């Protein structure tokens, strides 16, 4: 077969070259195995034979899972391993596997059919329950079912546990639970048919340091199992069956990339300190409790942004207080006392939730989203705040409200929080009475009024992604105007300075959780402006640490002064590049 270029969306950088591993993730289409293959002949030999196959598959599956549990203990820690161990126990449940054997004996079903039937039966029973937390367990059942099916027909769909050498996964889609189980030493990259840049899976890939391309569409159909693949996670490109010289060239790029990563890893263990000895607080943006663990491993001082909407977007119904509480408490526990800033849900806009039935809007970014939803559908916000407050009893939890555009919204949100605190106090439920409460600064009106807000909030967190798009009125996903979208725009920089200065004036602090905080080029400027807390995707922490170690705060202050007098983003970039070139090689 010939060389093939497949273009997708690059969501996690890195160049990787390895064999393709076609992965089918779930039991979704399970029941529909070929109809003629659904039943076995009514002879005792056929029944015995089918039972034997099923038993073998169960034993193989148990063995795989035990290996995976061992692997998980090392890779992601006891907690995730505990989840897998729970799955392993389900395999021995009297209401699960024995029912499959019974169906083969009594209904003469083939082993795959029996597995699919029992899995669907049990999973739909669980899905029908009223408790949100339990509903999620249906996914576990389907997960195990998928494993069993994979063991029954090893040729067709391979589980992740069968991977023994470094590969690039090729899949229709990967669920976050698939992704979190990936071992970065074996799965060096993945390419999927569906998915987008902001998907949970993409974010997880970045925090695990796995190169990833998503949304490749039908292009992936041209990839065969075992084909050599080059995956470029920055360019979003995948080359199947590259020519020899080309492969060699990419192997070299991969080598350089891995070496660089290795050298950056040396930074993870030590705190971020500038050349003049200033300690800088670096935090990670996470979307699930599981990522908190990866963040700690990559050297985060805390969590600067816990995007809670993923908790909601991965569910089929609104997660209840208990389920939310568990997720927040888990993150707090994993961060062992380090700060965890939980942002109340930022849904609406481009993040739809089918079960909320929010109206479609023509201009979603200027519409009904985030705190605007929370202040109307107060039951949602109250449930979330109860869960956050309860989690605050377990560690350094802070909360912040997104999309605040004026003081009245902040005051309303704050008073709802006070009411919820009152309820908990009355119920005798423990929470941190001193929990800090802040706001996201992502709307220019709020940045301009930072001085007024500073008297009332405990902290600010600047969300540059939205702040830039609202300030310059440009959508960075729109190719016609994306050149206008630039966080080095002088107006954006003025706003950032206003916010930081306003907080310092009254002894408070400002963090930043947009992509600007993870850009090494912006680091000297942000240091010079006095940014207190920098929060980014965990994969970026080492690069920023490396950068900060070469910077002197006084020099950066002077640089910031110079930059704030410049009139175009281009001039700002030039100044930063010149500064960067003059101080350290970059």
């Amino acid at each position: 077969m010939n060389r093939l270029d497949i273009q997708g969306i690059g969501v996690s950088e890195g160049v990787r070259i390895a064999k393709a591993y076609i992965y089918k993730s779930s039991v979704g289409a399970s029941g529909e195995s070929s109809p003629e293959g659904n039943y076995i002949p009514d002879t005792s030999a056929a029944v015995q034979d089918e039972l034997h196959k099923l038993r073998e598959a169960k034993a193989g599956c148990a063995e795989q899972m035990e290996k995976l549990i061992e692997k998980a203990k090392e890779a992601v820690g006891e907690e995730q391993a505990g989840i897998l161990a729970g799955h392993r126990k389900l395999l021995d449940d009297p209401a699960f596997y024995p029912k499959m054997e019974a169906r083969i004996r009594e209904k003469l079903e083939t082993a795959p059919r029996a597995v699919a039937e029992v899995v669907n039966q049990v999973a739909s029973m669980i899905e029908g329950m009223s408790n949100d937390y339990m509903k999620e367990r249906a996914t576990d059942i389907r997960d195990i079912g998928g494993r069993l099916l994979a063991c029954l027909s090893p040729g067709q769909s391979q589980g992740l546990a069968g991977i023994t050498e470094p590969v690039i996964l090729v899949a229709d889609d990967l669920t976050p639970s698939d992704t979190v189980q990936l071992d970065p030493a074996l799965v060096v990259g993945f390419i999927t048919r569906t998915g987008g840049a902001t998907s949970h899976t993409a974010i997880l890939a970045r925090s695990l340091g796995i190169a990833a391309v998503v949304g490749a569409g039908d292009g992936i159909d041209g990839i065969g199992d075992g084909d050599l693949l080059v995956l470029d996670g920055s360019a979003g490109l995948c080359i199947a069956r590259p020519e020899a010289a080309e492969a060699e060239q990419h192997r070299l790029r991969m080598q350089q990339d891995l070496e660089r990563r290795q050298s950056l890893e040396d930074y993870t263990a030590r705190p971020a300190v500038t050349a003049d000895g200033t300690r800088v607080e670096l935090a990670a943006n996470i979307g699930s409790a599981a990522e908190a663990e990866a963040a700690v491993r990559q050297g985060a001082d805390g969590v600067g942004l816990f995007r809670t909407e993923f908790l909601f977007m991965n569910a089929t119904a609104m997660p209840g207080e208990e389920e939310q509480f568990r997720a927040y408490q888990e993150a707090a526990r994993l961060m062992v006392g380090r700060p965890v800033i939980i942002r109340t849900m930022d849904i609406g806009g481009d993040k739809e939730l089918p079960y909320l039935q929010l109206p479609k809007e023509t201009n979603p970014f200027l519409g009904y989203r985030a705190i605007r939803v929370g202040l109307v559908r107060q039951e949602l916000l109250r449930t979330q705040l109860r869960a956050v407050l309860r989690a605050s009893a377990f560690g350094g939890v802070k909360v912040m409200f997104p999309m605040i555009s004026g003081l009245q919204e902040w005051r309303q949100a704050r008073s709802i929080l006070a009411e919820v605190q009152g309820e908990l106090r009355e119920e005798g439920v423990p929470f941190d009475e001193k929990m800090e409460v802040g706001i996201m600064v992502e709307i220019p009106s709020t940045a301009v009024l930072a001085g007024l807000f500073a008297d009332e909030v405990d902290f600010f967190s600047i969300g540059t992604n939205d702040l830039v798009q609202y300030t310059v009125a440009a959508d960075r996903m729109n190719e016609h105007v994306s050149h206008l979208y630039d966080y080095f725009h002088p107006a954006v920089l003025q706003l950032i300075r206003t916010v930081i200065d306003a907080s310092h004036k009254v002894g408070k602090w400002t963090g930043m959780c947009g992509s600007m905080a993870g850009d090494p080029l912006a680091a000297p400027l942000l240091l010079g402006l006095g940014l207190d807390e920098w929060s980014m995707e965990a994969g970026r922490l080492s690069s920023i640490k490396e950068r900060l170690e070469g910077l002197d705060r006084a020099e950066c202050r002077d640089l910031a002064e110079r930059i704030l007098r410049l009139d175009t983003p281009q001039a700002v970039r030039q100044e930063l590049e010149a500064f960067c070139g003059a101080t350290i090689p970059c």
Partner: protein
Amino acid sequence: MFTQTVTIQNEQGFHVRPAQLFSEKAGQFGGEVRLKTNEGRSADGKSMLELMTLGIEQGAVVTIEANGDGEQEVVEALIQLVESKFGEA
């Protein structure tokens, strides 16, 4: 056969973790263990899946029934587990 009734006290009822702890304890027993609700539904005490799909909520009264050698001990141990609210706060 030995039976005894108990009230479910923990806030979330018989969810995943209680079902797991219960089935593990029951699983150590050689004989049969069943858990029955007031409405006449019942589950294999050794099956976490059956236990959790009963959807037993806080305040429900259930009967634990065991059959076999040491039946009284296993029922008492399970009652104690339920009464400890499965170690939850």
